[in-house]
């Protein structure tokens, strides 16, 4: 375990950014390809977490704490969004009995 800790302390920033980018991309790909509203929402959360990892990594890299403060706020806003998404999903499900994003295409040109 000490080796892991060493990696955290002196490890390359690139690795964290790659993880962050991968999370971001997975979230994006999921958002674009999945049709279930809840899964889509989870994917946006995944993107937020990608940002969070980047923030923490940069914060550590610069040895400056405000990045981590930002993370706390991002998590809070993400929680608020989760509550909102939950309410919205319940509302939509009651209306149509489905969570398929494709069922909601009444508004268009």
């Amino acid at each position, binding site marked *: 375990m000490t080796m892991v800790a060493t990696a955290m302390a002196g490890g390359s920033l690139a690795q964290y*950014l790659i993880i*962050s980018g991968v999370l*971001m991309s997975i*979230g994006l790909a999921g*958002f674009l390809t999945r049709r279930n*509203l809840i899964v*889509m*929402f989870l994917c*946006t959360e995944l*993107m*937020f977490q*990608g*940002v969070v990892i*980047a*923030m923490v*990594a*940069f*914060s550590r*890299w*610069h040895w*400056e704490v*405000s*990045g981590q*403060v*930002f993370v706390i*706020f*991002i998590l809070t*806003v993400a929680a*608020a*969004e989760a509550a*909102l*998404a939950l*309410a*919205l999903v319940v*509302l*939509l499900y009651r*209306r149509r009995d489905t969570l398929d*994003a494709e069922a*909601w*295409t*009444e*508004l*268009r*040109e």
Partner: protein
Amino acid sequence: MIDRLWFLMPELIVLGGAVLCAILGVSRKVGVRNLLPVFAGWTLIIAGVVAWLFVYVPSTELAAVATEVPLPWLGRWVVIMSAVVGLMLVFVQAGLVDRVYEAAVAAGRVAFDPLRTTRGEYWVFFLLSVGGLMLTSGASDLVWLFLALELTSLPTYVMVAIGRVDRRSQEAGMKYFFLGALASAVFLYGFAMLYGATGTMSLVDIRTVLAEQVAETGSMNPLATIGLMVAVLGIAFKLAAAPLHLYAADVYEGAAAPVTAFLGFVPKAAGVIALMLLLSVTGWQEDGQLPQVLVILLWVMAVLTMTLGNIGALLQTRIKRMLAYSSIAHSGYLLIGILAGPGAGYTAVLIYLVAYGLSNTATFSVLAGLRRSGQEVEFLDDLAGLRERHPIMAWGMAISAGSLLGFPPLLGFWAKLLLFMAGIASGQLVLVIIAGVNSAISAWYYLKIMAIPLVGTPKSDAASIERVDVPGARFALVLISGALLVMPVALSDMIADAEAALREPDKMQTVDEDSGHAGGSAIKQEQPSLQS
């Protein structure tokens, strides 16, 4: 003791009003629930007056506090603007939200259930969102900017969904929420890169660090540049600027007309102000130049936005969709001002926001004030012959659409003129010419909006269009139409105020050193004096 919290006074008042609305909204008494719009309105009035008379009065100690904020006096303009336009929106929305449920309770068909009423929540979200817009103007760091933007947009998602009981409004809310969350993630990623490149969250410090980097390496840090680009593109969602504009048509159409009036102004204004802060502080360096990449980016966005918006509006028959596309086009015009930069460009943007916010609210107040067999008016042609039944509505529509088109002598014309002049002055002649051509294209559909209610031949079933029984929307319409006609008289005052709002902290401080308490006159000393 003057603390930075002092600057937050109007926002705290709005927060207090929101709390009050939340608690009163679950009251069992109908009278109390009906008072909510009144509370919301007074909250905004008090916030505006406090900002006007007490908060942004320059003094030495306040100026010392203000140095951490990039544009400390911007709040004055934004808070008062939000309060004024917000008050108009209160009139437009009052009594129109949650009608079905409240009517059922009043008729005794259902028992009152605090869990099912949404009137209180609506006004809470309304106030919070307006408060978010006010907060945006005071942002000194990325965290604040992010929180203010989210505070502005999160409530709007709910307002869209609960604004009326309709499948389409729920669909609109869903689309708005999901795409909004996506856009938030995008601009957050941009913020993260910006932070990574500079190692600080504070906007002022970011500028210093970037300037140092430019001085060392001769060009801007690529990571910071990409970060800024991504952040700008993410914030473009709030403005409904291309390529993140597609949601606007669907959401505006799906939401209830009073909510659409709100959507057309508050999130857009917040986005514009966020862009102003972000770019003025990080983008423009000491040499007065924006990095070439950002210039190209904003240029392309502006052209795409106004062209796609206007062409989209050309072929619409549904009036809300048409206005949605037109509001996209207006974002494109606003981007010209942003591109023109601090000073003339931003001054024009501030004035344009007021003109656009008022005119937009007025057009939607017509739609909010009319019903056809209990439903909203959907097609433009339905308004034909409106003048004969409801002349005030028809003329108000003509004046506000004329102002959106930029018809002299209405306020919208002067605002557009200032924007274009600022664009030319900053060397963006081609962009302004494109905007002029776009403006000409937009005449096509704006004239339709103006002419059909006034001189159109009514359809056989036109009689079924009725006014709603709440006079708020008409009241707002008359007020705004009058304002659009009268405000150009005070144009030079407005320019002076807008310029004063854009002062940077250091300059303000020098003014205040010798002027003691009489802060109001201190502002006037450096701004253009008005002779009459």
